[in-house]
């Protein structure tokens, strides 16, 4: 049994002068306080990579900074899926009896710690060095290729995708830590600067500074016990050139395993935390995981299905698209919000009862998938 016992997220946006280690330290200390655990209780640590501080041993860098004495420490690295995969790995460490409290932490100053061009260049490097990068491909271009295919296959429109950006912005407006809170319309998304067709600037998440941490424990430490009930991963390819013809294949494999290990189904979920690097990322996840019909994620968002008072609230902090995206901490912020909601501690953003939630992220270009079911058991 594994429980998400501690959570913390900083504000996302600009944290000038603060590097990845300081940002992660802030989130880690806040998560320890949230869990009510002394630092001596933590015996495992999985730290995310930071593009602004490329280091071979971020696990031990953070262990040293936090003065932890660990039985396991390492740096995890599967792109956007890092936080989700690290939480699943923490569960495995606990199930194996190797650790009792594992700190998962990510954070960096991706916005102020490097030039925007450097950030984009590093990110484009997930492409194939011989067959993709020399063509001038960028991360938005890789996702644009998937987006164009998705629109072709489903008949959805760019305006449908824009609905998801609008929804994330509306949710972010209710969170004081969100990077982007100015209200947004579908027309504004459609009129924003083209990046790689069919993606416009406002279909893409921003680059941010920030950090987040989650503590995975062998037993609950607070009043609300949020159990990691099911987990699944899939790693179908690295490069979009070798992506399966079925755009949702990796997501479906990971989610099916997560639901099977939880003994639950997609229909049982009452709250979602889904990776939303680009509007098509979110649309594809919602549809292939069974939370919307094919091509109808945008329409469902417009009709309120994923709003706070809808049937299936989604990314109530604003997601990567509007809360912000500082790398590994980006998806951890989704998890923090989901746990906060499940505890009933989300204040004015609080949804009605949400005893079961599904969280899912991808790294690369739908390459690595990690998803898990959370269940409130007390």
């Amino acid at each position, binding site marked *: 049994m594994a429980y998400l016992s501690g959570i913390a997220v900083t504000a996302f946006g600009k944290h000038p002068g603060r590097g990845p280690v300081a940002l992660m330290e802030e989130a880690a200390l806040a998560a320890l306080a949230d869990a009510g655990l002394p630092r001596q209780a933590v015996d495992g640590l999985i730290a995310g990579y930071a593009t602004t501080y490329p280091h071979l041993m971020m696990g031990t860098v953070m262990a040293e900074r936090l003065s932890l004495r660990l039985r396991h420490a390492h740096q995890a690295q599967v792109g956007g899926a890092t936080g989700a995969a690290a939480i699943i790995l923490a569960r495995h460490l606990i199930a194996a009896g190797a650790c009792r409290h594992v700190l998962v932490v990510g954070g960096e100053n991706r916005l102020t710690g490097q030039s925007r061009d450097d950030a984009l260049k590093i990110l484009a490097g997930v492409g194939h060095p011989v067959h993709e990068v020399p063509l001038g491909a960028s991360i938005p271009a890789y996702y*644009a290729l998937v987006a*164009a295919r998705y629109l*072709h296959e489903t008949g959805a429109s760019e305006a449908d995708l824009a609905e998801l950006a609008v929804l994330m912005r509306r949710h972010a407006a209710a969170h004081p830590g969100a990077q982007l809170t100015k209200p947004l319309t579908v027309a504004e998304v459609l009129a924003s600067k083209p990046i*790689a067709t*069919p993606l416009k600037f406002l279909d893409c998440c921003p680059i941010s500074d920030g950090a987040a941490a989650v503590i995975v424990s062998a037993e609950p430490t607070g009043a609300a016990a949020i159990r990691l009930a099911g987990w699944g991963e899939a790693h179908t390819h690295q490069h979009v050139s070798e992506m399966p013809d079925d755009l949702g294949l990796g997501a479906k494999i990971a989610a099916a395993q997560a639901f099977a290990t939880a003994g639950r189904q997609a229909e049982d979920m009452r709250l979602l935390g889904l990776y939303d690097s680009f509007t098509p990322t979110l649309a594809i996840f919602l549809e292939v995981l069974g939370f919307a019909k094919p091509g109808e994620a945008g329409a469902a968002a417009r009709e309120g299905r994923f709003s706070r008072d809808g049937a299936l609230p989604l990314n109530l902090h604003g997601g990567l698209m509007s809360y912000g995206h500082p790398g590994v901490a980006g998806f951890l912020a989704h998890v923090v919000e989901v746990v906060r909601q499940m505890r009933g501690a989300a204040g004015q953003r609080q949804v009605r009862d949400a005893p079961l939630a599904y969280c899912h992220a991808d790294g690369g270009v739908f390459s690595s998938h990690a998803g898990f079911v959370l269940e409130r058991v007390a």
Partner: protein
Amino acid sequence: MSGPMLQSCRTCRHGWQFQRAACPACGAQDIVAAESGGGGTVWSVTTVLRAPLPELDMPGGYGIALVTLDEGPRIMCRSAPGLAIGERVQVAVEADGMPRAVPAGSELEDAGSG
């Protein structure tokens, strides 16, 4: 004009692009290099208007396509302007070693006029 280079498995005839020592389909290691005929169908296509590096930016952007070759593999190519998903294309390797896709038949017109 030459077609893109692929690898082909002599055991199961599976073909692919990225260099490997073993067949992704059957695991056999009897692999040969094979030149694609270049015929294929556009699986997806985008016009990049914001390049990853400013020096790569081009007025009006530049096209990148994923083309499913008739031999089976899907490869990333430069795209002639205006290609659409499902369109038949001919892929040839350019001087810098990178493949470019043009509408099927148009490469013959180019040869005729040149």
